């Protein structure tokens, strides 16, 4: 794997708005909208798109964890998705939740996944079609995955700690203020504070937004390589852990590292700062 790529490692993992508009009715694809704004889909969405709610559909309703493989299979079946369906994810907030949903699909072993470059905002800004009509697809039979791929793409607190102690790449994608410990919440979300501010010792600060352009599309492969290989010290042969507050912004960075730069050993610590910053005895560094 080159650390000075001229193109994305998996360009097929991205679709452009222009392409999608011409392929809305293709067989074998399912367009999936995932947003932070819980009612945004209801106000209008890409024709044919289904809605998968990061909270209500993908997370266990009681325990802080994801749904079971059986529930995932049922969710896919309900949305007419089979293991062979290519799911194209898009959403608000520069695709935070689209990347999160994509990552969750990968947790269940669904391999055929793509992101709409630029997300919902770009689609709307370009005046492309939007509808309120909710599609209905024939129910499919999706065999429940035998396991969740937590070990492969998800990190837990003890693994993040091990990453920190072994001084392997650990990327904090939150805002600089959160990283430094100046604020205990994300800008714009003061109601979501934690008990302690700062970052996991040894983590490098690289806000998720660094990977995107003004229109929310991803930067070029050479630009991304500079950011993550040169500035963050990420190496293809060393595993990397990314984190934020609840795992959505770090899903965005996970997508960049995994699909655009081609690293196959990146894990998302989705417990992130809401776990670490509240955890008794967890080591914390403050400042830049």
């Amino acid at each position, binding site marked *: 794997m080159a650390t000075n790529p001229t193109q994305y490692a998996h360009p097929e993992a991205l679709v452009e708005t222009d392409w999608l508009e011409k392929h809305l009715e293709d067989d074998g694809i399912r367009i999936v909208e995932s947003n932070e704004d819980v*009612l945004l889909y209801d106000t209008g969405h890409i024709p044919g798109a289904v809605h998968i709610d990061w909270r209500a559909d993908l997370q266990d309703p009681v325990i802080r964890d994801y749904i079971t493989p059986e529930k995932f299979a049922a969710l896919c079946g309900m949305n007419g998705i089979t293991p062979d369906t290519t799911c194209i994810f898009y959403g608000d907030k520069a695709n935070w939740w689209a990347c999160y949903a994509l990552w969750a699909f990968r947790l269940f072993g669904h391999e055929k996944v793509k992101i709409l470059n630029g997300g919902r905002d770009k689609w709307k800004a370009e005046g492309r079609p939007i509808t309120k009509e909710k599609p209905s697809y024939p129910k499919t039979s999706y065999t429940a995955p035998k396991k969740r791929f937590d070990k492969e793409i998800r990190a837990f607190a003890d693994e993040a700690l091990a990453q920190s102690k072994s001084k392997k790449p650990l990327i904090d994608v939150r805002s600089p203020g959160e990283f430094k410990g100046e604020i205990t919440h994300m800008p714009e979300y003061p109601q979501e504070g934690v008990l302690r501010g700062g970052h996991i010792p040894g983590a490098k600060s690289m806000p998720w937004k660094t990977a995107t352009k003004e229109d929310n599309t991803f930067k070029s492969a050479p630009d991304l390589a500079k950011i993550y290989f040169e500035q963050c010290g990420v190496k293809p042969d060393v595993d990397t852990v990314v984190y934020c507050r609840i795992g959505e912004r770090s899903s965005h960075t996970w997508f960049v590292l995994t699909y655009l730069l081609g690293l196959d050993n990146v894990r998302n610590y989705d417990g992130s700062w809401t776990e670490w910053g509240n955890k008794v005895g967890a080591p914390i560094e403050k400042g830049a």
Partner: protein
Amino acid sequence: MSKDCGKLDELGNRSDPPYPKKLDKIIHLFETLPEDERRETIVSYAENAKKQEPRPGEKFDLEDVRKDEECMDTVGVYLHVDENGKAQIRMTLGPEVQTLTRAMTAILCKGLEGCTPQEILDLPSDFVTRIVGAELVRIRSQTIYYVLTRIKGICKVYLDRQRMAVA
């Protein structure tokens, strides 16, 4: 006290009706709706939020336009109090404001029509979940309370100024 709004008794308990009449009607409407229709109605209110913007020629006693940390975009609140002491609220919302927040804007502007600034200030916020439903009040959707806070804020400033003018 206006007949459209509930009032507080000597112990600070609110007597019936607990909310302004118009707001009470909206609350009851939402409580009778099945979940799907509740969501549709919220979206419909959100789409009507633009109708709450100031209209040409309207004059206001107070204007408060700002981008707060609690909200994704700029929100403007405009207050006019008529000769009978009744408040009229208008609002402007930036494009990034969430759907639920837009809906609450339309609901509150409509539901608080005919109230005095003091009655608005005394309004409890427990009705919000009765309108929105427990399922939608969750992490990343808590700005539903923001609009009420801003409306109460402008009413408080108005009342403080009135008191200072009298003193």
